[in-house]
Every structure is written in structure tokens, then in C-alpha cells.
């Protein structure tokens, strides 16, 4: 038991679970304040998500719909995680996600490209957009959080401007992929059959999980990953050891940008949603990615589960009783979870302190016994 508690991964898991439980509890208390009658039911509805349906077929279909939006979230989370491992806080993931959406939708609808070139273009566009942050950081010492936020807004307005060329004539939404550009729809690859003929579930889901594993390997098993992490830990030491620290910073943000952009393409090339060109705020996907990355203990595999959980409650928010509460209660819970993730270090410290204390007590007891003899 004690050995288990000393394990870093177990500590991270415990810390994450504490964050989730506290997050839900605080969410429940907020609901109690708004209206005590339905608070319990509402929080249950959020947690249950697709289990709110009683028919198995509907459950599977809605489980699929949650997965459709988990794939892009996972990509954004990986983007945040990857940059964080190199000591960079990529809040620009939200904007890179938007740029990926823009590139893939525009190529699909305006130029009639197929899905694979669309994905590649999204990767390219996101990589370049991430590189902007990297260049500013490496050569001009601009804080990546501030430049990231600026680029989020620039990306949003640029996307609205560009995608206005491929929107429906009577609505602010972009054209339906299914009718206007069926060649750009991501293939189902058997996933759609697996989940009750839900055509929105595509290869994006297994691909995103595969990419998570690749990121894990890249970070832990390759020389590049080692160098990037070394740069993150101590820029000057890395430079002294002969690593190109500026190049590493830029490369990191290129990869992070490409990951988030791919997330955008993963969602919009399924035709699950259309982009609204009158959108006046940056989509929350990138910011939820921050929540998922930290909740996942900054481990790619943990992030897979954390992304699912965050998306699960985000979708679950739609099932609360709208006559009393709003669906944004799940955004509130996610935000509280991110806030609590700030305390993870402290939770780990507390666990370790507890372990040290019990050990000391035991030692003292043993010593006392020894003295009696």
C-alpha cells in the first residue's frame, strides 16, 4: 500500500480524482444555490450524459457523438501537454485549432480537395501558426501566453473572413460537407459500424489515440524528446550542453500548433458541426484542452481518459433541466477542475509528507523497542 502511494503515477491519479470529485462537489453546491430542488438531478444528468437515454441504441449513438468531439479535444490537450513539457504554456492552442478548421474547410469547400490533403494542409497551417509564437518567443522574448492570446483573436477574425466565401447564402454557417464536398468527409473506417451506424464517428477517433501514443514515445523514448524536455527544464543548461535551444522552442510550437490544428480538421471534416462565420468568441475547445492536459496528469495516456471525461461532462451539460439551470454548468465544473489542478503539486506534497511522517513514527517505535532490550 505504501509502496503504491509512493509511485508517481498513482499520486497523479489520486490528485486527478480529488480534482474531479471536488469539481463536481463545488458544481453541485453552485446548483444548490441556484435552485435546491433539482440540483441533485442536474449534476447526475451531467455525469450520466448518454446514459440519460434509456434505449441501448440511442445510448450507443450518443456515446459516439461524445467520441466525435473527444478526438479534437484530445488533440488540443496533446498540444498543450507537449508544449508544457518543454516549459511553454500553449494557450494559443485555441487559435491553432481555429486555423486548422479554416484551412481544412476552405480546401474542402473552395478547392474540392480530398480528406487526406485537407488534413495535411491543416497540419501545415497549424504548424506555421504555432511557429509564429515560437519565433516571437525565441528571438524577441515575447511571453508565449500573451502572443498566443493575440493570435487566437487574429485567427478567429481571419477565419471568419475567409470562410465567409464558402458559407450558405442564407445563413452564417459554412456549407454542409456532405452535400457540397463529400470527397473531404473523413472515412468511417469501421468505427461508424461499431457504434450503431453513427456516420459522424470516423477514423479521427482511433487516429487521435494513436497520436497520443506517438507523443508519449516521442517524449520518453527519443533523443529529440529528451532534448526538448531538457530545454524546458533549463534553457541555459541545454544551451551549454550543445542543444540548439531556440530551434527547440520553435520546433516545439510547430508540433504543438500542428496537433491542435489537426484537432480542428478532425471535428469539421466529419460534418458534425458547421462553422458560423459570425462567431464572436474563440471556441472553447482549445481552453478545454488545457483542462484535459492537466487533469490527465500531463501524461499522454492519462490525457486520453481526461479528454474523454471533460468532453463527457461538457456534452452532459446539455441534459440539465433548462427551466432551472444552463448547460454552461459543465464549463463551470471544467474551469473549477483546472483551478484545482493548480494545487496538484500541493496534494502530492501532502501525500509524501504523510508517508514520511508515518515512516518516522514507525522508526521511533522501533527505536524505542530496541532501547528496552
Amino acid at each position, binding site marked *: 500500500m505504501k509502496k503504491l502511494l509512493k509511485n508517481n503515477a498513482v499520486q497523479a491519479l489520486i490528485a486527478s480524482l480529488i480534482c474531479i470529485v471536488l469539481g463536481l462537489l463545488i458544481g453541485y453546491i453552485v446548483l444548490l444555490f441556484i435552485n435546491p430542488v433539482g440540483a441533485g438531478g442536474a449534476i447526475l444528468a451531467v455525469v450520466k450524459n448518454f446514459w440519460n437515454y434509456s434505449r441501448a441504441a440511442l445510448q450507443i449513438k450518443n456515446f459516439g457523438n461524445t467520441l466525435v468531439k473527444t478526438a479534437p479535444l484530445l488533440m488540443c490537450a496533446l498540444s498543450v501537454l507537449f508544449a508544457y513539457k518543454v516549459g511553454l504554456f500553449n494557450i494559443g492552442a485555441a487559435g491553432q485549432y481555429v486555423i486548422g478548421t479554416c484551412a481544412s474547410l476552405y480546401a474542402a469547400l473552395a478547392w474540392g480537395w480530398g480528406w487526406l490533403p485537407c488534413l495535411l494542409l491543416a497540419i501545415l497551417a497549424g504548424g506555421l501558426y504555432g511557429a509564429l509564437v515560437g519565433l516571437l518567443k525565441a528571438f524577441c522574448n515575447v511571453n508565449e501566453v500573451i502572443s498566443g492570446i493575440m493570435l487566437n483573436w487574429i485567427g478567429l477574425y481571419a477565419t471568419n473572413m475567409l470562410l465567409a466565401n464558402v458559407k450558405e447564402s442564407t445563413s452564417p454557417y459554412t456549407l454542409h460537407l456532405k452535400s457540397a464536398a463529400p470527397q473531404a468527409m473523413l472515412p468511417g473506417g469501421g468505427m461508424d459500424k461499431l457504434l450503431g451506424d453513427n456516420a459522424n464517428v470516423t477514423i479521427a477517433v482511433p487516429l487521435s489515440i494513436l497520436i497520443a501514443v506517438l507523443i508519449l514515445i516521442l517524449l520518453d523514448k527519443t533523443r529529440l524528446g529528451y532534448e526538448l524536455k531538457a530545454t524546458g527544464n533549463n534553457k541555459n543548461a541545454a544551451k551549454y550542453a550543445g542543444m540548439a535551444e531556440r530551434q527547440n522552442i520553435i520546433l516545439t510550437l510547430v508540433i504543438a500548433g500542428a496537433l491542435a490544428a489537426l484537432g480542428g480538421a478532425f471535428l469539421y471534416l466529419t460534418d458534425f458541426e458547421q462553422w458560423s462565420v459570425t462567431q464572436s468568441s474563440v471556441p472553447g475547445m482549445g481552453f478545454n484542452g488545457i483542462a484535459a492536459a492537466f487533469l490527465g496528469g500531463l501524461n499522454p495516456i492519462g490525457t486520453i481518459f481526461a479528454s474523454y471525461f471533460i468532453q463527457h461532462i461538457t456534452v452532459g451539460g446539455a441534459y440539465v433541466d433548462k427551466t432551472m439551470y444552463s448547460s454552461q454548468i459543465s464549463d463551470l465544473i471544467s474551469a473549477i477542475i483546472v483551478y484545482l489542478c493548480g*494545487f496538484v503539486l500541493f496534494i502530492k506534497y501532502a501525500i509524501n509528507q504523510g508517508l514520511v511522517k508515518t515512516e518516522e513514527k514507525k522508526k521511533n517505535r522501533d527505536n524505542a523497542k530496541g532501547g528496552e532490550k
Partner: protein
Amino acid sequence: MLLLIQYTLIFASVLMLVALGGCFSEHSGVINLGLEGIMVIGALGGALVMRYLPASVGPFPAILCVLLGAVMFGVAYSALLAVACINFKADQTIVGTALNMLGVAAATVLVKAINTAANPDDVSSEIQYVEAKKNFLVNIGSFEFNWFMLIAVVMLVVAYVVLYKTKFGLRLMACGEHPQAAASVGISVYKMRWAGVLISGVYGALGGICYILAGVSLWKFENGVAGFGFLALAVMIFGQWKPTRIALAALLFGFFRALSNVYFGFPLLMSLNIPGSVYNMMPYIISLIVLAFTSQHSRAPKAEGIPYDKGSR
């Protein structure tokens, strides 16, 4: 033209107030990335007062109540940042980001709950304050003077005097430069940093309520404050953490923000035929360019962003 000046001044007031807030926090050694969230919560506090205050109280008490409501909300909210970053030594970037997300989410949930309780069919996240807003405006000819322009100037003077002319301000700045040295002469670094963050709550909240009173007379809380908290941080960096320079930087940024509101009033700009989105992007692009040129030799407080640990040297 007059309209451009009017909008420039009001947006500059917002940016200056929030940037001064960031300035206090950073001089004490805490990076406050949560200013955006503090603005939203401050705006919420003020908007709630405007919603519930009876029209009979008269303009001056009304203004005072609105300001007080905003400041109280903002200070309480910034305490969340202080307790996490100062006492629990949490990562300041994570906590700041969390506060931004939390601010918008909490305001939306709360306002929607209030609206739905009043009218079950109303699921919007909007608060209207058409009447209450008039208290803040004085028409001088065709120029619409907003009391916030004066408040911003007063707060600027206060910030300057407090930071440079009082014992408290100098001690505060010492905590951001070299907290161990400050502690060695008997200054409580924890208390000073708490003070810095709470003051940034006051300024951020004033900026927030000023922002939602600029131009419009209803606010949709789902939208947050459109990155103004971060623009203000850019203003602060451009202003090199000095109140007077921050004021000038705020005017520059305010001008570009104002352009996107009034560009269609200028025949010259209209004839260029630039899409509206480009004007919307302008303040953000300008801030990136400005940051690229000023960040290299920035005079940031040396110990900002590093949690203070009594035991470390």
C-alpha cells in the same frame, strides 16, 4: 472625428485601469494572467448593482454603488488567485488561465439563472442597463463624456503616488525584485503579495465595468471581454511596468481598438474597402508587433512568477 476621440479615450481608460492592476500584481511578484476573468467578474458585480438598484437613488450614489459592487466582486475573485499562488505556491499560469475560464463560466451560469428565475422563457446571458448607464454619461456638445475617463485619470495618479511615494509602494516593489532581501529587513512578503494581487482585483474590476459601459447598454456575459485582459498585459509590458508610460501605451492601443468601432464614419477609410474583420484584428496585430520590439529589453520585476519560499536563498 469626435466619436473616434471619444472611443479612444474610453477604451484607453479600460486598458489603463487593467494594465495598472497588472502592474501592482507584478511589482509584488505575482503574474496575474487572470485579469481577464477578474474583469468579467467585476463587470458582473457592477451590472448586477445596475440591474437591482432603484432609479430613485440619484446619479452620484448610483455611480458609487456600481463601482463598489464591481470592486467587491473583483477583490473577492482575485483572492482565489492570491490564495493559490501565494499560499499554496501553485503555478501562476495555470491558476490565471483557470480564473479566466471560471470567470466567464460562472458569470454565464449566474446571469442565466437570474434571467430564467425571473422569466422561465428567458435563457439569455444578458443584463440590460439602459437607464443606469445614463448616470455615467455627460453630454458636452456632441461629445459624450464618460465619468470613467475621470476615474481612470484619478486611479492613474493614485497608482503613481502609491507605488513611488509611499513606504507601502516601495516595499511592494521590493517584494517583486528580491523577496528574500525584503524579508530580511522585516517585510512580510506574503502580506505584500496579497496586497498586490487584491489591488489588481480593484483595478481589474473597475476596468471590467468600464468596458461593458463603453458603447453598449446591454452585455452578454457568454462573450467575456474579448481578450482585453491580455491586451492590457501587452499595454503593461509596452509601458515597461511604469504607470505614466502605461497611460501613453493605453492611448495608442485604445486608438486602434476605437478604429474598429468607428472606421465606417471616415470616407477615406471606407474608400480603401478593407473588410471589417481587419479592423477587428488591428489591436491584436499592433500589440504583437509592439511586443516583438519591446520584450527583448524588458524591465520586468525580477522575481515575478516565482513563488516565494521562506526557506530558499
